[in-house]
């Protein structure tokens, strides 16, 4: 099917975009990479009155070092992240996970800000940002807010973003040498949305400290397994009792069903991906 008709604006500055977004005259929706919004419009699941194209706003495309963080503009595309030396050096978890997000041609257009704003329960990015303890900077005409990834993602396609706000950038703490990261997902075909997946960050491994274990594609949004983290923090990686306890706590997560798997299957797969990701938590800085 084709998208229904809409008006189209392509501002060159962030300010112009925010002014348009705050206007009550017309209901407008931001367009980033279009790799989710365009399919939704073609399927007529989305019918915005006006599209506000962010692709010409240079202010939203940057990757920069800021003290102990890397700041990434909302319009940075997955392919650009994968090619960035800063990302390779400072956010090794992205390097592990990004090749699993969709396919090359989709990664050439899809943006980090689009994935964050969409909050697809099957998407990798929200889970990665929670595992990394990242923060999301949002802007409106009159204010800016900084929201932790833990507080930003509220449910299926639901975030803390207000309708007059844009995702401006993402702030990710840089990895230091003791940090360890893991990522594992099960998908029927490379690049497809996962049946179940997990992203893990830890400040150290022997013993585990400050673990963040975040699942995607099992629940209504990226979900932290806090009880599993508690069962493992302070324990050594070969402590099989602790691992067993952690795996048991996963049955308490709120699983959803999709066309591919029942909630019981999702629970089983969550155990599988967590064990596999933990077993190869890799070095932080390469």
């Amino acid at each position, binding site marked *: 099917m084709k998208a229904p008709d809409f008006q*189209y604006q392509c501002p060159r500055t962030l300010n112009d975009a925010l002014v348009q977004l705050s206007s009550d005259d017309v209901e407008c929706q931001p367009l980033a990479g*279009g790799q989710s919004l365009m399919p939704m419009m073609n399927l007529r699941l989305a019918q915005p009155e006006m599209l506000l194209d962010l692709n010409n706003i240079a202010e939203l495309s940057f990757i920069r070092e800021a003290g102990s963080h890397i700041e990434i503009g909302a319009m940075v595309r997955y392919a650009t992240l994968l090619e960035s030396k800063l990302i390779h050096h400072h956010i090794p978890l992205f390097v592990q996970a990004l090749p699993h997000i969709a*396919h090359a041609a989709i990664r050439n257009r899809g943006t980090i800000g689009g994935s964050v704003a969409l909050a697809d329960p099957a998407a990798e990015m929200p889970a990665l940002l929670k595992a990394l303890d990242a923060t999301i900077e949002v802007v409106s005409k009159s204010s800016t807010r900084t929201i932790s990834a833990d507080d930003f993602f509220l449910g299926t396609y639901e975030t803390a973003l207000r309708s007059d706000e844009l995702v401006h950038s993402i702030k990710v703490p840089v990895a230091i040498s003791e940090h360890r990261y893991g990522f594992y997902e099960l998908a029927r075909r490379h690049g497809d949305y996962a049946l179940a997946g997990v992203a893990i960050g830890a400040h150290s491994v022997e013993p585990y400290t400050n673990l963040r274990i975040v699942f995607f594609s099992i629940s209504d949004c990226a979900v932290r397994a806090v009880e599993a983290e508690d069962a493992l923090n302070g324990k050594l990686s070969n402590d099989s009792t602790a691992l067993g306890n952690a795996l048991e706590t996963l049955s308490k997560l709120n699983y959803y069903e999709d066309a591919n798997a029942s909630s019981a299957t999702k629970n089983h797969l969550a155990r599988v991906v967590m064990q596999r990701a933990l077993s190869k938590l890799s070095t932080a800085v390469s």
Partner: protein
Amino acid sequence: MSQKTNIALSVNGEQVQASVPARLNLVDFLRDHLGLTGSHVGCEQGACGACTLSVDGVMVRGCLMLAVQADGANIITVEAFGESVTGEQLQQSFVEHNALQCGFCTPGMLASGIDYIESGGSTDRTHIRKHISGNYCRCTGYQSIVDAIASVVEGRNSLAVETKQTPGAEESGTSNKRAGE
């Protein structure tokens, strides 16, 4: 009345100007307005890959980009893939390996294959399969498509070795750079 926008772009080396409605996607513009029906439209959801084409040297889904967004861009479609060395070699290799049957997926397969080869991809079949994972083929079972891509990479690798052994020989054209960079 829907809003129309004037766009000017380069398509396969030719300058094109048009006035297009916002809702028109790039691949429909190329097919219906310019008569370039080589790029195919399968799903209009980004899933099948048949519409994959090059915009400013980067392979994208033609169904997930608007024609208005291509204003000022340089577009290369399957109709002109054969004009690049990689494209020509890959098309020849597709013929030699019988890498198409009905041909519906072929424009997108060629696009992804060219992208793979030009970004310095190896002959590793798993890598090739990962790179073309976004392109559906309902006929060939993929085996022959992977063969065709691998064979071009192999040919280039052996040419590179020969070139190294023959001082003063011409550059072989093996490039590790992404197209258009």
